[in-house]
């Protein structure tokens, strides 16, 4: 009957009751004809976009949808007025992401920083749903590879395999209410070669992402990853805080972050600044969805 369960059951029941009362008072003939147990219904729109900010969210693209994404990360706000508070500096990533089916999406992107190309797939293993065969949460698996093509800074260009890295990430999330969604996303990033002796080739991090809806088209988001095996002196934990604005066909994700990177290798293993020391940058993700393959009716 209703889309919440678990914790919200009491609230849900009381909401349903107040809604049903006027109908029942008219002695509906439908009583008993409608199924008491409703069919399985997907819990949708836990996040406005397929990314919380940097990290993959528990949202999928629907089959046939093409998401054209333009991401910008600016310089540090505390670089002062001469750098126009960071806006003079920008790096970007452009990506095309596509829903192969409702449960599998793929994407390819390229970042200006290190001229790095990334490819990924994201698969929905379990979809949060209510009704028959319900599931209290969603579970997804993201797999990706990155390959930087830019010239190394002061050395000769390493061979191709040394410029390649991979990641695997599990995303477990739940839309707790109409307003609040939360997900945990452990990730493993492997770099074939690192250029600092103290760095680990394989980095484990635990990600957490949350969304709180302020209105139908406006939400606050938080995206954080805690590195489990790298020294904080080498890498800091990427933390981003932003707002999602939905305007019909577009989603704008405006945020403040200490991370520069826009792919998993870059933001997990190459964030060196500290959010709470004020090394914060402005950035945005712009998402535009095109329906290439319409659902048959």
């Amino acid at each position: 009957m209703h889309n919440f369960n678990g914790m919200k059951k009491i609230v849900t029941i009381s909401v349903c009751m107040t809604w049903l009362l006027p109908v029942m008072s008219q002695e509906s003939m439908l009583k008993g004809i409608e199924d008491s147990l409703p069919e399985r219904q997907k819990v949708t729109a836990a996040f406005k976009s397929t990314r919380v900010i940097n990290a993959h969210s528990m949202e999928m693209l629907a089959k046939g949808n093409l998401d054209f994404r333009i991401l910008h990360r600016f310089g540090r706000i505390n670089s002062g007025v001469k750098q126009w508070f960071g806006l003079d500096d920008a790096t970007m990533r452009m990506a095309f992401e596509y829903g192969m089916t409702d449960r599998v999406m793929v994407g390819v992107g390229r970042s200006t920083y290190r001229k790095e190309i990334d490819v990924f797939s994201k698969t929905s293993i379990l979809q949060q749903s209510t009704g028959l065969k319900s599931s209290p949460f969603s579970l997804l698996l993201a797999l990706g590879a990155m390959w930087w093509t830019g010239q190394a800074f002061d050395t000769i260009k390493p061979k191709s395999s040394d410029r390649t890295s991979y990641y695997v990430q599990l995303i477990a999330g739940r839309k707790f209410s109409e307003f609040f969604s939360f997900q945990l996303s452990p990730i493993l990033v492997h770099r074939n070669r690192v250029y600092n002796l103290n760095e680990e080739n394989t980095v484990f991090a635990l990600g957490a992402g949350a969304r709180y809806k302020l209105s139908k088209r406006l939400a606050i988001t938080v995206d954080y990853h805690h590195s489990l095996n790298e020294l904080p002196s080498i890498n800091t934990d990427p933390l981003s805080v932003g707002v999602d604005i939905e305007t019909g066909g577009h989603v704008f994700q405006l945020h403040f972050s200490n991370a520069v990177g826009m792919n998993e290798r870059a933001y997990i293993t190459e964030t060196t600044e500290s959010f709470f020391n004020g090394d914060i940058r402005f950035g945005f993700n712009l998402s535009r969805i095109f329906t290439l393959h319409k659902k048959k009716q």
Partner: protein
Amino acid sequence: MMFLLTSVIQTAAAQTKYFSKSGKISFYSKAPLEDIEAHNFRAVTVFDATSGQIEFSVLMKGFEFEKAKMQEHFNENYVESNKYPKAVFMGNIQNINDLTLEKDGVYTVQVSGSLTLHGVTKPQHAQAVFTVKNGAISAVSDLTILVADYHIKIPALVADKIGKWVKIVIHVPSYGPLGSKSNG
């Protein structure tokens, strides 16, 4: 043989309520930049051939759009399906005596009642056509509602994409006697 036939007719006459779980409800919105349509094939409906009482109930999340994002926005931003999961129509066929289910024919009836949608109940009136053919009952009707009547807000930004008026088309392919399982 004659006895059998009489008994069949008698059962039919004694049966006054008819229902269907596979009513089709579609809606159409026309706006300068975009035409929107959605279909729901699982409307539950029942009518009483004696009293003329008629009802429809439909799950908002069951409306299928050709664009997935439209469907998401419809549920999330417009009708708020989590808060108001159903739309319900409760009404009366005013000239129920004109509808003779025992006889094949096409019957035009007037239906008045109230439509509850997005938590708002408004009176509605529509003309419906019942068709009885070889004992099978089907019905069609349509009505046009003003979106604003149901407190569904259309932001100025998308005003060119969503019509202020929405046409609702109802088609019940087959009403079966209540209690019978044959009509799914």
